[in-house]
């Protein structure tokens, strides 16, 4: 074992924290809120190390000994990249907010004992996936996160739909894992090694098949058309906090691991770019069209999430196909804002479900004046996702738009047209839901009638308000955030 320990320290904190947290809460019989506070402390510890690593990027990345582990055969090497550190920072910040939220959200459940440790393990697994340079290691960590995530999805196992959703996620993810395993087999057969420290110099057919296997595996986890079918069932039935975590951060970040692996396995940038752009179009269209006419709130959000996966893929695809740094910045910025807005949307919808005990969209009618703040935040999330100016989504849209137009190529402009069509169609999905909150019946001025308001717990309000503020702040003054993203992209060494 050699190298810089700081690189893996966050994962150590997360995994160690998970075990200790479980033990402590088992022994001391902690209540939900205490446990959530302890989990937050662990997350903050990991976050601080990550931020420190982020500051060190100029010293860390260019040097060849920025790794941790054992490079002998059978050993494991973990290497950080600016991108992975950035994505993990976003992921952990969102997770902290989700953990605060869970402090109240789980009030009616009893199994919080395993809930927080599992969240920590999912984070550690995600972090490990980004760091690993060894295919088998990657496979193991993917499995680890899958199992932890499906346990979280099926968290309310007294509900049949929750079990179904967890099972579906487990089966689909295992399919993806099988593909990865197959890929590993081909790669090992060709090279006799499982390390992937740099781009293969002479890819042969076997490694290219391996690349295709990994492409499929990660596409499945990201919910790329036509492997998206699990998305609505899973996000629709998992606890809102978990849906927010998975849809906002987890599955979207797969799109950033996918290129790293596939390129190193010998896929060309054009091929990858082409794949991403073409399937982005499908995702955008399928997501936005299926969004219309959904009656379940979270199912509706899941379809919008499929469309957003498409937007992200579109940005990255332009980046690879045309070798355009601007498109990468747009893609990464979009990742940031989607992570914020999507988790916000799921969290806010969770509050509705928590107090209304249903996720029927029709039941939202008029709730805008019973829970004004939640309705406002949910509206901000939906309007942001719809790309209304002065909210974060619009800046992302503007950046993707400019990236697609910079190329001046017909292919990207056709995709752009589909992107536009999708945004217009999805407006027809977002607006009615947004409006329904304020609109009970046809009586004039019903909007402002004030039936007895619902007192929303602060544990639920704080994360939601913070996320909404972020959406507005990024939308009004995006400069520093864009700089941040550009900085990360400059250090992105794929």
């Amino acid at each position, binding site marked *: 074992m050699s190298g810089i320990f700081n690189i893996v320290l966050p994962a150590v904190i997360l995994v160690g924290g998970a075990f200790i947290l479980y033990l402590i809460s088992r022994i001391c019989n902690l209540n939900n809120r205490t446990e959530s506070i302890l989990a937050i402390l662990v997350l903050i510890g990991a976050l601080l190390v990550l931020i420190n690593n982020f500051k060190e990027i100029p010293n860390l990345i260019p040097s060849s000994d920025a790794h941790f582990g054992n490079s002998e055969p059978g050993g494991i090497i973990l290497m950080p990249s600016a991108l992975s550190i950035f994505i993990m920072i976003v992921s952990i910040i969102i997770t902290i907010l989700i953990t605060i939220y869970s402090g109240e959200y789980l009030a009616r459940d009893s199994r919080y004992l395993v809930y927080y440790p599992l969240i920590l393990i999912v984070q550690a697994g995600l972090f490990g996936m980004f760091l690993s340079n060894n295919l088998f290691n990657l496979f193991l960590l993917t499995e680890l996160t899958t199992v932890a995530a499906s346990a979280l999805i099926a968290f309310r196992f007294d509900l049949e739909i929750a079990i179904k959703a967890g099972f579906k996620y487990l089966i689909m993810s295992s399919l993806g894992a099988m593909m990865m395993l197959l890929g590993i087999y081909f790669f090992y057969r060709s090279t006799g090694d499982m390390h992937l420290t740099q781009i293969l110099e002479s890819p042969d057919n076997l490694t290219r098949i391996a690349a295709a296997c990994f492409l499929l595996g990660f596409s499945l986890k990201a919910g790329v058309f036509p492997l998206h079918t699990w998305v609505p069932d899973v996000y629709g039935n998992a606890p809102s906090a978990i849906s927010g975590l998975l849809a906002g951060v987890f599955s979207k970040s797969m799109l950033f691991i996918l290129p790293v692996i596939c390129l190193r396995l010998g896929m060309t940038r054009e091929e990858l770019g082409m794949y991403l752009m073409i399937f982005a179009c499908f995702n955008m269209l399928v997501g936005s069209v299926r969004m219309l006419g959904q009656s379940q709130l979270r199912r509706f959000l899941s379809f919008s999430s499929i469309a957003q996966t498409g937007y992200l893929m579109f940005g990255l695809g332009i980046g690879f196909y045309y070798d355009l740094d601007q498109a990468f910045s747009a893609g990464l910025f979009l990742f940031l804002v989607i992570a914020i807005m999507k988790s916000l949307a799921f969290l806010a919808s969770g509050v509705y479900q928590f107090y209304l005990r249903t996720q029927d969209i029709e039941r939202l009618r008029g709730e805008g004046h019973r829970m004004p703040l939640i309705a406002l935040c949910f509206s901000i999330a939906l309007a942001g996702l719809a790309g209304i100016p002065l909210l974060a989504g619009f800046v992302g849209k*503007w950046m993707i738009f400019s990236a697609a*137009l*910079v190329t001046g190529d017909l292919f990207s402009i056709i995709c752009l047209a589909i992107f536009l069509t999708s945004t217009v169609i999805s407006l027809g999905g977002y*607006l009615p839901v947004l*409006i329904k909150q304020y609109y009970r019946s046809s009586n004039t001025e019903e909007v402002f009638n004030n039936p007895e308001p619902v007192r929303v717990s602060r544990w639920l309000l704080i994360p939601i308000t913070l996320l909404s503020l972020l959406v507005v702040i990024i939308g009004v003054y*995006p*400069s520093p955030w*864009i700089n941040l993203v550009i900085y990360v992209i400059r250090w992105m060494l794929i």
Partner: protein
Amino acid sequence: MENYEWFLSGIIVIPIVGVLILLIWRKATKKQAATIGIISESFALAIPLVLLSVLRRNDQIVFSLPWIRNMGISFRLSLNWLCLIFLLTEVLVTLTAMIYSLGEETGEKNSNFYYALLILFSLGMSGTTLADDAFLFYIFWELMLLASVLLILIWGHGETRFRVALKYFIVTHLGSLMVLVCLITLFVNFGTANITAWMMQANSLPINTQVLLIIFFIVGFSVKMAIFPLHIWLPDAHTVAPMPVTIILAAAMLSMGTYGILRFPFALFPLENLQPFAIWMMIAGLISEVYGALMALAEKDIKRIIAFSSVSQMGYIIFGLGSLTLRGMEGAIMHVVYHAIIKALLFMVVGIIVAITSERDIQNISGLGFKYPILCVCAAIGVLGISGMPPLGIFNSEWMIFAGGFDSGVSIALTIIVLIGSLLTVIYALRFFGNIFFGDRKPESLPQKAPLALILPTLVITIFLIVEGLTPGPLLTWAMKGLASFIGGLH
């Protein structure tokens, strides 16, 4: 930065302060909310007037603050003669609507929200006219749309307002997206969002790109102008909206499309590249004119009659723009102003009629003439105005538009048809007036007097219309100056 440049930002900042006050002051009565609204709008009206003397010296006042540096986007406002005309029109209309609103029942409850949205609506329009940065322009452009959608949604009449508002939003948003495509194309090509900087360089774009941009811009803005067949949102939105909002929609917001066309395709590209589209714009103008007038003739709902008349009047404007002559464009700009005044007047009259009769079907209203003489006079002047009777405003502008049409050398026959088509306006206007004010009195029971709070602003606007019509001088000078600085290659 000079002091007067900071003044310019007041047009944006003071209304925002007004909105904030209204949002905090939740218990404000309608009168109190209206006072705040009227005060902040008065500032927005006064500032450009104060800046007039500076404008005479400089022809342009620019206020600029850095905003998103790494994307070349700044908070940049500029006031010039062309903006001034549209800005003053828009603010005056909003002010009128706010005062008029005091006399009717819209927004009795939660007046603070109502007036805050009215201010935001107006802010969107003044921002659109002032913005000299594409990003900023689009933000204000969408603000205008959002505020109006909310106003229709919350205070609109009838069961259908949910669907109408959605349709209005999506159709006009489609137009906005076409504009956005153009804006980002230009932004990407020049690396900056500064519109004035674009004007220097736009001609360097390849001709194919220019043609595409011109098409997208004109079609995109035509949606806002409600040119046939892109008008589908207008009749419903105008009918469902409460009267003050209808006044702003019809009199002020429609003109933003005209401003957009002048500001972007006309100002950016040389006129010879626009030439191929001249005939199409003129034909679109003709069709809109005739279609709007025929629909106005066929309609029974008095609010819809006036709404369709907007489609018809916008036809004249796009026809004038399409002539690509100085006279035609000046005529179009003047038509925007006169149309705003007359449309506001007519909708105010309709509002009063609806208030006293509680009827909107023209067949159930008649013989109001002798009972309400002041209303009758105002309506008569509005109706004569819209039919182009001298000296009431529209006569001047139509004269110039037709002169532009004859000058353009595109097609004299087309201009003659439009001229004859304007007879339809006279027919529907007189039908409207004759049916309502002459004949047997219907409905039977009517209040003794029309509400004074509604009659007074109507009377003021009527007088204003006559004054404007008699003294077109300053307006014409401004329009000429504005066009001279904007449109290159005009003679």
